[in-house]
């Protein structure tokens, strides 16, 4: 129990801190627009994201949003437009972690670039949006938060204005994003039409009361369009098309940020919307079908497309991009496996996966950032023999790869196993089988990267590579966390399950 009772609005502390940091960065930059003090900017951004992380962890540990005896209970703000429960805090933690890693890594990556302050503040604004998504409890706030996350992301992807790849990536991301958000908005309007409400809880009550029975087609179409919007954010098939290009063309830290944090944020709204607003049984009564069927199909197709497309890539970043799509497929199991009589196990497993993914995938992309910082090139062949020059970073890369492949003894194994086991328990034999097959395939291309850096001989002799502190620190922290999560997975399981139980 806390000795001091904080005012209720502080429950959104992590998001607010991120927003404040973004504004602070603007302010600092406005004080002397002509000079750029990178240390100060990066310091502020790091401090802000770490503070947000600290607060989120603190809240989570202290029992904010926990429903138990020693918890504070779920905190609802602005008439239930926002809600801070364990789920929200859990995802805020993920977002904050990734943000912190990305910000630290960007210090070196962005060295020499213009628009430093803008860069950091856009990152933090996007993070704010994502943190807000975690707490949003109404389709309105969800949409706004989503846009708050998306718009800075478009800008961030194309921030390397003279880089054709970056611009192309930004364009594609933006166009697909615009289309998707339009579809999402249209879905919201249909759901609103069918139920008359935008707040999740109210929608559920209407459906449960059977008042929406007359609008089965409308509601069904609306739900389908909502799935579309979410699929865009999580980079799931068929809305994944932006991802390979955006991740490939964007500055690598941004790729890391988008593929980890943005995806997690996409999943949190998916989890919340579908559990809170569309109770499975009642919705099925209206639209005549379990919406989990859609997620089953999406999960299988997404993981298969992602993994298969990743298998033969030559460009490392693009391989990681497709792998990221594959992982979205894994996490979709969290929704596919929901059932009327519970499902916190499967959703919890998906949440665990997103946390671990936050470390290992961010780490992997940050390694790419490091490689871009060195200027060694982009393909597997360019990476050949890096292990001789930069053993520590490459060791970390091996950890990320094997963890992404989900093989022990790394954190990725646990979350993948829990997904698998809960899918089995949910009776999704086909999904579980697809998970296994795709994992087997993924091992091939992940180990290809390990092979490149550790096994292959360098194509040409390199000079010693620099060791940028920020990038190294971020990578090492991510790697250590990926390893430590193996023995220390117990608390993660407990937290994730509790968070999932909050909404299921």
């Amino acid at each position, binding site marked *: 129990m806390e000795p001091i009772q904080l005012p209720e609005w502080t429950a959104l502390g992590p998001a607010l801190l991120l927003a404040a940091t973004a504004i602070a960065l603007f302010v600092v930059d406005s004080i002397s627009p002509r000079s750029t003090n990178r240390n100060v900017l990066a310091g502020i951004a790091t401090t802000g994201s770490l503070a947000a992380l600290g607060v989120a962890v603190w809240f989570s540990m202290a029992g904010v949003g926990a429903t138990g005896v020693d918890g504070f209970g779920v905190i609802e703000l602005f008439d239930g437009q926002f809600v801070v429960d364990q789920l929200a805090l859990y995802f805020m933690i993920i977002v904050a972690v990734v943000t912190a890693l990305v910000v630290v890594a960007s210090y070196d990556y962005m060295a020499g670039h213009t628009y430093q302050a803008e860069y950091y503040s856009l990152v933090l604004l996007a993070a704010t949006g994502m943190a807000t998504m975690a707490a949003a409890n109404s389709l309105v706030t969800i949409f706004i938060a989503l846009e708050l996350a998306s718009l800075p992301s478009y800008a961030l992807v194309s921030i390397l204005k003279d880089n054709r790849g970056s611009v192309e990536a930004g364009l*594609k991301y933006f*166009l697909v994003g615009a289309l998707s958000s339009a579809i999402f908005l249209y879905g919201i309007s249909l759901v609103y039409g069918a139920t008359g409400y935008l707040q999740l809880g109210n929608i559920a009550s209407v459906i449960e009361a059977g008042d929406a029975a007359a609008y*089965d087609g409308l509601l069904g179409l609306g739900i*389908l369009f909502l799935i*579309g919007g979410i699929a865009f954010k999580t980079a799931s098939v068929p809305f994944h098309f932006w991802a390979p290009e955006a991740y490939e063309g964007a500055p690598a830290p941004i790729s890391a940020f988008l593929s980890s944090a943005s995806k997690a944020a996409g999943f949190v709204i998916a989890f919340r919307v579908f559990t809170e607003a569309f109770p499975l049984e009642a919705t099925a009564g209206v639209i005549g079908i379990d919406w989990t069927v859609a997620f089953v199909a999406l999960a299988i197709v997404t993981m298969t497309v992602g993994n298969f*497309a990743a298998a033969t*890539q030559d460009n490392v970043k693009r391989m990681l991009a*497709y792998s990221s799509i594959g992982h979205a497929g894994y996490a979709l199991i969290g929704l596919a496996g929901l059932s009327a009589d519970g499902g916190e196990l499967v959703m919890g497993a998906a949440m665990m996966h997103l946390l671990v993914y936050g470390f290992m995938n961010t780490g992997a992309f940050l390694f790419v950032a490091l490689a871009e910082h060195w200027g060694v090139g982009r393909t597997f062949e360019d990476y050949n023999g890096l292990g001789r020059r930069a053993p520590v970073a490459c060791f970390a890369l091996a950890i990320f790869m094997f963890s992404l492949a989900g093989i022990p003894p790394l954190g990725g194994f646990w979350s993948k196993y829990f997904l698998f086991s809960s899918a089995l328990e949910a009776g999704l034999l086909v999904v579980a089988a697809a998970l296994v097959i795709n994992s087997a395939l993924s091992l091939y291309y992940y180990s290809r990267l390990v092979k490149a850096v550790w096994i292959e001989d360098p194509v040409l002799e390199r000079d010693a590579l620099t060791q940028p502190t920020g990038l190294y620190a971020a990578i090492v922290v991510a790697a250590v966390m990926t390893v430590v999560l193996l023995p220390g997975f117990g608390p993660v399981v407990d937290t994730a399950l509790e968070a999932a139980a909050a909404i299921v």
Partner: protein
Amino acid sequence: MEGVFDYAPAIALFPLVAFVVVLAFGTYLPKKGALPGIIATGGSLLLSLVMAAAVASGEAYHETLYEWAAGDATSATGVEGVSFTFGLLIDPLAALMLVIVSLVAFLVHVFSLGYMNAEGETGLPRYYAGLGLFTFSMLAFVVADNLLMAFIFFELVGLCSFLLIGFWFRTKSAPSAAKKAFLVTRFGDYFFLIGVVAIAATFGTVAFAGDDSFVTAAETAIDGGDQLFGFDAQTWVTITGLLVLGGVIGKSAQFPLHTWLPDAMEGPTTVSALIHAATMVAAGVYLVARMFGYYALSPTTLAIIAFVGGFTALFAATMGVVKDDIKQVLAYSTISQYGYMMLGLGVGGYVAGVFHLMNHAFFKALLFLGAGAVIVIMHHEQDMWKMGGLKDKAPVTYYTFLAGALALAGIIPFSGFWSKDEILYDALIVGLEEPVIMAAYAMGLLAVFFTGFYTFRMVFLTFHGEPRSEVAEDPHPVGWSIKAPLLVLGVLAVVAGIANLAPVAKLAGVDITFLEHWLDGEYGAIEGLTYTAYGELLAYETSYIGSEQVTVLVAAGLSLLLAFSGAGLAWLLYNKPEPVAHTERLGSAGKVIEDNYYQDEYQVWLAEGLTLPLARAADRFDQTVIDGIVDGTSTASLFGSDRIRRLQTGIVTNYAALIVTGVIVLLLVLGFLGGWF
């Protein structure tokens, strides 16, 4: 004398110590390791004699010394638990064999001083270590009190044989011969091992002697009419007996697994004398004698043993006729003689078989060592056509060799006559009742003629006539270390027959069949392992031509007649100053014989013409089909991957189209399932 048996393990362990010492320090020892070997085998010989004396004083020894492994396994006959042990069984048979083996081993060690050391061979520690290990294994095999232990040392002597045949490993032929020797005997041992396993699994014991021996158990099972592994007990005993016989046939170089022995002559002649004539090859026959009680239970097996023995005796003898290499002649002669022993045992002539085993050990070791001496004299020339006239230049060698030859040819009164005659007599009396045995007897008898012929052809070509090469005119002198063993063995070859003058005994009615009494347990013995006990188990009927005496005379007369004819023919053809080859006269038959009836060819074909291509085909199958499926899976996946990534065309309009398509597909599927339309 009872306490002396406590020292029995030392008989085998002495040479083992010598092996270790020589292996570790041989290079630094004087005589490069010969001395430890001589001392060890000498010690073994002394102890063996002491054991023999102890047995003569009425003792026998059967003791389990070490439990190798044990466990619970219920045998087919219902025995609970099994233990595999190392133990000693020193009965008259073993004691006799101990003396033979240690004596020959000792003499060969001494001989080696002249044959190997004096000739400046390199790698001598390896040689003496091999001899030591061999002697150890062979002695341990002899005293083994159970079938598994026997198998273990049976294999180890095979290893030593391999190592020693391949002593001159820098040549092409020696390693090849060593490999062949090991492989062919291994093929026999495969059946032997199945036999051991089968016997152990059937009876829960592998002991040779005592109440819990597998022999007793088998007897009980047959009497009780048990069903074992789906066969009636009698058949099963036959099957297992035949399986063990596989090892015997391999090791004792019986048809069809005899092909390795002639090749084994690539080894040093001393090794040939010790391993490939006197002792290791005898191991097979000894094993049959050792578990004779078991074979006695199965007339079928015995008949097969007899037939194989008789056939091999004739078969090998014919091949010996045309060989030009002195060692080759001896090698085929060895095969042939072991055929006799098998014949003897197969017709129930336990004493006769063992008797011939003993005599053969002496005279064949003598002949090989004599041949070794000749080879030294001839500066390592082995072709008899390049020799001649050595009679006067090397009298000791000549006369001892002649004694051995007379014994081998079965000329009265040399040792070989007595034992061979006894075998043929035993075969004849059984053969009068059993046609199969009669056929075996006939072949054995016919072989006597060939034996006489090739033996004396060898003697005449080597020692008589004029020297046919420069080296034969200027022979290399040999030292005492060569002469002394020859003399010892020469004396034995002449007089060893006294041990069992059965025909004399039968004709004159004098009780001078010492060996028979020895093996029949009149001194010390283990119950059940006696000639009489075996006789009771045997199911053979016997009959005589007229009376027993007449039969003895007929048998002896026939074999002597044939032996003399063979020797006489050799005298006619080859005892000339300048003998010429007569092989051409045999025509196409001669060609067949010279090529050893194509036995090597078909066996080599089995290995290289059939197995190897089969292996290569399997390898190709493995590389293409099985591995192809594995690689194909990965190729297919990667192909699929390549297709799927083509979805990503890079054109954003296509993406929008695909997104819309995806949504529509989902809409149609969900709508159809949900009944929205």
